């Protein structure tokens, strides 16, 4: 009887700790998710405009700041820095605090740094649109902005690192490896790329090479580990069973760490730089299939036998979609980077399709999964509408599949026509028309879906969510128990603190 009440106290303490962690992070996490979702909507509007312009060059052509050559870079950069990075920050900050079992004591600093980051994105977007873009893919924000980003990155994430170091020693979760690695790689990749491109005075071809490497390093060494960390947290957590295989998780992690940093320079294949660099990049992108398979198998096996939960839980459903996209990414990366295909994909629409598959199909889907899990916990309210979540899911899935298939297929035909050097160039230029129209329609669908997401998220931040003990599920009846613990404990906690 005594031990029973002891364990009960322990459980109660544990629950209170988790509630305190969630409360301490409510504003930073909601700030990153909500402003990220707002930037996502902006990025999608810009994506729709630029895609429309790619098949109708007269669309908005009289408006200088909405010219295709400015809207396209603005679309990509806002998608990466406005949405991608901020969603990643929200996930890292919350997951690291929960996994290290430490409250956040620096919410104010994180929020301030987050505002600076947002100002940077705003200034960068306006800079590109008004003709001050730097002209280096994925680094188009005017060059004054990158040091600002680096400083605010430091003040956003350093606390997560400290929390990890101060947690109970000796035990770590798989999710923590990935998050730590992302925290470690991002500044190194980001600083290297910007120093070599903007600051050092090197050879222009090598600057372009570093720039091409930066794209893939950001995908494989920042967005990928954050997405995988989130999935490795959610899959066992929601199903209530351990990760399927620990050795496989270890293998997948180190495979990514060893293969990822080599990828990217295949953009310069056949160009005037040492040719081992592009082909090593192509080979590494082919080999990404190895970590993709390891992680894919591990997470899907963890979820095996829990098909009902996958169907009904928004978090799991998005996670499964994201992990499936990672597998597709590995397969597509293998297919598109063999030397004979690389000829056709190096300068066609395909690259865009691959990047969107990585950033949206894979990373963003995993991030949505995390957001649908985290937001009810930090706001202590349930999602308002399962229809909103369902629409967001299906519109995004169909939209992304269409963008990726159109870009990759259209790009392959486009590339093949470019290679046919005896035919007129105009033949190659016209061939992708239908595919770009398809892409435009799909961006419209995705935009529509993510507006539901944005609205839903803002309502949750305003604490207008359902005050209920039943999580919002996509199918079937609600469970009888709240996933966040009973509400009265928190009320007691409030009273105690007051």
């Amino acid at each position: 009887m005594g031990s029973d009440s002891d364990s009960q106290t322990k459980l109660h303490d544990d629950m209170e700790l988790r509630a305190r962690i969630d409360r301490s992070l409510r504003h930073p996490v909601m700030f990153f998710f909500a402003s990220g979702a707002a930037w996502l909507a902006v990025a999608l509007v810009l994506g729709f405009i630029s895609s429309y312009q790619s098949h109708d060059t007269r669309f908005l052509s009289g408006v200088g700041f909405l010219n295709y050559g400015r809207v396209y870079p603005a679309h990509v950069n806002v998608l990466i820095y406005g949405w991608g990075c901020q969603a990643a920050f929200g996930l890292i900050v919350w997951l690291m605090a929960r996994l290290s079992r430490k409250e956040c004591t620096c919410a104010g600093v994180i929020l301030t740094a987050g505002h600076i980051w947002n100002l940077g994105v705003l200034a960068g977007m306006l800079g590109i649109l008004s003709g001050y873009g730097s002209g280096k893919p994925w680094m188009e924000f005017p060059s004054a902005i990158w040091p600002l980003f680096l400083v605010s990155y430091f003040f956003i994430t350093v606390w997560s690192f400290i929390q990890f170091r101060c947690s109970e020693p000796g035990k770590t979760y798989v999710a923590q490896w990935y998050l730590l690695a992302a925290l470690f790689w991002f500044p190194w990749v980001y600083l290297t790329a910007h120093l070599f491109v903007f600051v050092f005075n090197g050879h222009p071809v090598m600057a372009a090479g570093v720039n091409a490497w930066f794209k893939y390093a950001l995908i494989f060494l920042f967005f990928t580990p954050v997405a995988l960390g989130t999935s490795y947290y959610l899959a066992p957590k929601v199903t209530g069973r351990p990760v399927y295989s620990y050795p496989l998780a270890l293998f997948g992690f180190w495979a990514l760490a060893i293969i990822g940093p080599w990828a990217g320079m295949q953009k310069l294949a056949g160009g005037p730089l040492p040719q081992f660099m592009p082909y090593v990049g192509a080979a590494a992108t082919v080999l990404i299939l190895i970590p993709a398979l390891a992680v894919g198998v591990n997470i899907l096996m963890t979820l095996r036998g829990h098909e009902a939960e996958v169907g009904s839980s928004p978090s799991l459903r998005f996670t499964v979609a994201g992990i499936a996209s990672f597998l597709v990414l590995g397969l597509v990366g293998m297919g598109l980077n063999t030397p004979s295909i690389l000829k056709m994909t190096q300068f066609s629409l395909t690259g865009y399709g691959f990047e969107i598959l990585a950033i949206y199909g894979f990373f963003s889907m995993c991030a949505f999964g995390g957001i649908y899990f985290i937001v009810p916990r930090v706001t202590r309210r349930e999602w308002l509408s399962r229809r909103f979540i369902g629409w967001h899911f299906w519109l995004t899935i169909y939209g992304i599949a269409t963008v990726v298939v159109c870009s990759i297929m259209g790009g392959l035909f486009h590339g093949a026509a470019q290679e046919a050097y005896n035919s007129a160039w105009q033949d190659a230029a016209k061939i992708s028309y239908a595919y770009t129209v398809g892409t435009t329609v799909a961006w419209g669908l995705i935009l529509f879906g993510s507006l539901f997401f944005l609205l839903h998220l803002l309502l949750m931040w305003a604490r207008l969510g359902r005050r209920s003990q039943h999580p919002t599920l996509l199918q079937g009846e609600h469970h009888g128990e709240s996933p966040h613990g009973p509400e009265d404990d928190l009320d007691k906690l409030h009273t105690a603190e007051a």
Partner: protein
Amino acid sequence: MGNLLMVRRTISINFILRKPDPMTFKAFILALALSFGVPWLLIIVVPYGKMRNLEAVHFEMDSDGRDEVYVPRRSGRITTGSAVYGANGCYVCHTQLIRASYAGSELGRPDWAGFRIKDENGVTINTARETTPYDYVGESFAHVGIMRVGPDLSNVAGRIQGYLDDPLTKADSPENWLYLHLYNSSFKTKTFNNVAGCPSQTHLFEERVVRGQGSPEAVPGINMDGVEVLPTGDARALVSYLLSLRKDDAVPYSINYSREKKKAE
């Protein structure tokens, strides 16, 4: 009771997930630093340092017929023009890379990589060659490009010279051809069913009411009632830069990858 079970389940999951970790934190960070640092050194730092100081290439007596240092020739407002090219996103649709023949087929396209010209004996020679590291001289960043929606621009200045021979063209000089292309790419020729390929960059031009005989700077061939079109400074720099993109410069035999290259006799 239900709630209690729930919590207990969560704790037991936490317990199961926490595998004994064979790696210390230091070893973990060290391994990360190694797995990232090796490629970082091998494909970024060392090649960057090496390519900073490329050795000068020489014309040599036995292959080129003369003995001197190769100095890539390029003139125009390259630094400013390259920045305008980047800021307006020309690189999204246009590439500037003639790949080696194992990596692409640009060498096969007429006018993309060089010219077919007749030498003094009336023999046709093809000067098409792949891009060398010296083709980007004067720029801080090689605008290799993202997608090839429009044609490659490595030799655009050379091609435009050919377009001026077209009887339907409205342009009287390479500059004006480019101004017409940038202002509205369907204005370049006298036919009316032109398809606008490149989005029009009207923000690079100033439209104003004609006074008197009009400005001598105005772009000819644009008929708008009483309004003339003047290129801005950005447009001038961009056009100057584009006209520096040509592949008719004789390169030393050692870096000439043309299939039809010949040794000097």
